[in-house]
């Protein structure tokens, strides 16, 4: 693997970014088990 000259460079930044699809799939599981006080952004 380390010897390969070319590496796949497509959409590498997306791997480190939460997108709308990520959020939707995470929250499809319903409410959190332990509700906590929400943070209100100023």
């Amino acid at each position: 693997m380390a010897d390969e000259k070319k590496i796949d460079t497509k959409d590498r930044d997306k791997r480190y970014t939460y997108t709308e699809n990520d959020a939707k799939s995470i929250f499809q599981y319903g409410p959190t088990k332990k509700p906590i006080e929400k943070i209100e952004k100023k």
Partner: protein
Amino acid sequence: MLLLGDNVNLIQKTFNGDTMTFSSLEKLIREETREVIGNLKRSFSLYEEDEKPASEDSDKMLVVNKESGKSYYISKKSFDPAKHQKSVPKEKKTKTEEEEPAAETPAETPAETPAETPAETPAETPAETPATDTTTTDSTATTTPAESGTESKTGLKTVGALNKVDVEKLYKKSNNLYPQTREHLLQYDYEDIIDMYDLRVGDKKVDFTKLYKRAEMIATSKHSLITPKTIDKETLMALGYYYLNTERINNILRYSQPSLSKPEIERQLKLGKPKEGDKREKEYKSAMNAFTIREMDYAFEEQLQRLDYNILTYRSVKSEEVLQMFIDAGQWVDKSFVTTSLNPLISEGTGKKRLPLFEFLIPAGTAILTLPCHSNDYCHETEVTLPRNCRYTIQGFNDTRNIYKILVEQNYGG
């Protein structure tokens, strides 16, 4: 920083034992970071050919500290007659003395680093920070990060500045650090670097190359400290595949389950990768997906993968709308593996404003997966993969920097 009710106690216990508070940890890290960054700068300066020694820098002067009696170089702007006395440089010193001026003045050197007061004095910081050099150098003033050349190599605008030799040297240096210094390095939160970035982000005339490189060097050093020296063949293969097929693997975990039996997986792997268009292609991909999930799950169970220190990793959020969904929840369980990086700028370099950032607080004892650089084409990403079924809790919010502190706890899945 806002901390939420009972979660203050949770994070105190998880991260600091009974005697320290989160804020005192932050204070400790801030203080210790000066020393760590000072040490790193001395190390890194060996690789930065464009940085002159302090003795040859016309912006710096040799002074004697009136209190300690020690001599060292400071920025001319930092000269304080109450504290410093001008000193005449001795005749040419030995090479060792010239190269290591900070060795005798560790407490003083960081006064010029951006780590000291980035939050309080962002407007003044550029005058003395290395990152500012990148904004004022004539030769780079009109060069944008997109033109710097790393993107075509890595697909990312902010990393890829280090070559293999740089990385090997960093690995060696980092692994010679004392345990306490390792701990503080791993908890360094890049606030000074983030502040420098935020100050100029969106300005196309600014070249951030040096700033990116600094973040990458620190992230690589951290990576070397938490990565096992050796890794078994199966984990290497599985993680390598995951790095290239992250979305596909995680979609399987989120929306279905791997369905192939172990014998079928082994049969497909034994037959090897089929040529493009081969009718076995689909079965082989399914086998690789199932193999990857199985091997990663297995690797996360191994003692070798458990962290000796608390660490901080990062993942950006694409938009304020997506961010709000996480804020509304406050806490969530992710059934997929989660890809994070030790470098907070990993997804940056494209927008007018930095993306909201999640900073994951990962306690010692948590299992993570990393690949050593010698077996990893994506070493520059300094990836830390988290196991599936972790619980994520927003513990605090840094309003100034739009950074959310997320506590990670393992084994919440069903």
